[in-house]
């Protein structure tokens, strides 16, 4: 390896070149994804359309259909992976996903309620966002009231409880929903999809994801320390409770925003931080950007598959599960530790 043999004071930074390479790969993938589709475009046509020239029909395809969709895939993938990396560090478990505290179940219930009440799309998205935030809010509130020495386990179990309740309410609404009109919409939403996404859908989610990423980036060192557990983090000088609250709030904001946009897309937040950790190590300062970039690439590829491999749209959640679940088994087989 030869790492750190010459000047051991400066830690080697393999992460920087890798981050650059990922960014380049992301740009190329995005460009490729804009070309692919029922109305196939050449690189020249895409470049022309991007600069506002050439075939008007190609311009409409690029600006109104492909770019919003590619942008949404990048945003959702980056956001879920970043939130997943944060939750995994916080809960000291590499097999944790961003919906561990019930954000997906809550957002699902919010969206299903919105569809059930035949609300407009923007209101359904708002309802999903609120549902996700409220679910985690309830977990945090009850968690603060329950006196138990193991804070982490308390939160995880409360997440299971709130998730189960939200799931039950969602099921009830599905039974009561109109089977021809509402039920297909509900099912599709719960499996996640970026079909029919427009720029107007992305715009509210984007700033919220960015606002959520700021505290995660600022607290990057403390998040490492927090992954040692509460007692040790506090003995090292970190106000563990307060820091954890900020990280959970930020990661939940991110997850709820993109879940409102794309529906429930599972597995990304669980699997991608793993791949990132293998490449750049567990240090959060490198893990966060690497997770976001790989997550963006991954979901872009999956979403491009979702809209091209069949005549109908394949729900995103189906594809991410088909890819993610075997990977999860492989991780388990490699014997990484769970809760100690």
């Amino acid at each position, binding site marked *: 390896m030869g790492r750190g043999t010459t000047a051991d004071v400066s830690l080697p930074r393999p992460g920087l070149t890798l981050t650059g390479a990922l960014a380049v790969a992301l740009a190329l993938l995005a460009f490729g994804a804009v070309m692919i589709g029922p109305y196939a475009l050449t690189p020249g046509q895409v470049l022309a359309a991007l600069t506002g020239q050439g075939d008007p029909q190609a311009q409409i395809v690029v600006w109104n259909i492909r770019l919003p969709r590619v942008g949404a895939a990048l945003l959702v993938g980056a956001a879920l992976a970043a939130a997943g990396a944060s939750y995994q560090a916080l809960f000291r478990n590499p097999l944790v996903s961003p919906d561990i505290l019930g954000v997906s179940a809550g957002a699902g219930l919010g969206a299903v309620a919105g569809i059930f009440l035949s609300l407009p799309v923007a209101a359904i998205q708002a309802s999903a966002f609120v549902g996700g935030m409220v679910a985690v809010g309830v977990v945090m509130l009850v968690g603060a009231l329950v006196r138990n020495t193991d804070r982490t386990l308390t939160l995880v179990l409360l997440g299971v409880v709130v998730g189960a309740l939200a799931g039950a309410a969602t099921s009830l609404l599905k039974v009561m929903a109109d089977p021809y009109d509402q039920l297909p919409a509900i099912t599709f939403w719960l499996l996640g999809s970026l079909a029919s996404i427009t720029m107007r859908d992305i715009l509210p989610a984007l700033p919220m994801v960015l606002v959520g990423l700021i505290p995660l980036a600022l607290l990057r*060192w403390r998040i490492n320390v927090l992954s040692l557990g509460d007692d040790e983090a506090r003995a090292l000088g970190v106000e563990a409770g307060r820091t954890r609250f900020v990280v959970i709030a930020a990661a939940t904001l991110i997850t709820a925003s993109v879940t409102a946009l794309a529906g429930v897309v599972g597995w990304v937040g669980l699997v991608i931080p793993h791949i990132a950790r293998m490449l750049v190590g567990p240090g959060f300062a490198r893990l966060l950007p690497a997770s976001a970039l790989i997550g963006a690439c991954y979901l872009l590829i999956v979403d491009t598959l979702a809209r091209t491999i069949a005549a109908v749209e394949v729900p995103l959640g189906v594809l991410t599960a088909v890819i993610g679940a075997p990977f999860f088994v492989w991780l388990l087989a490699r014997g990484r530790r769970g809760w100690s």
Partner: protein
Amino acid sequence: MLEARDLAIGYGVRPIGTGLSVAVKPGEILCLLGPNGCGKTTLFRTLLGLLPSHGGTVLLNGRPITAMTRAAIARAVAYVPQAHAPPFPFEAVEVVLMGRTARLGAFSQPGKADRAAAHDAMRRLGIHDLAHRDYSRLSGGQRQLVLIARALAQEAALIVMDEPTASLDFGNQAQVLAQVADLARDASAEGHGVILSTHDPDQAFALDARVLLMCRGGVYAEGPAPEVLTDANLSTVYGLPVTVETTSSGRRVCLPSLSQSAPTMTSNAFTMA
């Protein structure tokens, strides 16, 4: 540096220990001994401010610990937990660097000076070759030394160690003990104060430590090792006959009776745990 008087400790509403007084000065090693369940760990967590006390106060350099921020406490006391397996494969030097956290701003990362301090701490313990190894794959003894290096990097005058030799093999135990003795009796600088818990009374003799012998949540005896660790005290606290003998090299060792007929085998130690 640390002083606690008449401390009541415990979780929940009922204290499990009362009347505990602890004091440590620079250059001094205080060895906490007592059977399982006597409240050693609870006392540790209270002394570190991780657990609120039920009564009495812990003073760090004259200030009550309840009035200090976590960072201020961490600059005064370093905690060396039992060697553990972390969930993520940090490099050993990254684990040591975490000792610098209390000296950083909330949003900062360790800088050059912090890295230098971390490498120095590892070099001082003779484990610098481990710096870029995966901490989660080190042996128990190596991990314990890395955690001690982290406490050194923390630059706190007092170091609190929770059974630093537990689960270490014979050789590693001796190596860790030698480092502990070194920390307190460093001739080149003001020695650290060290509080450590152990299950092995021989270690208190080896370290020439002051001893706090605990039993049922209280202090049974306190003072220099030869005065506290007597046949009678050890036999009462551990509930089986113990004799203290002096070897030909002059070191004292404690020898418990292994005879099965010992009638007191069912007492304190087991019922308390």
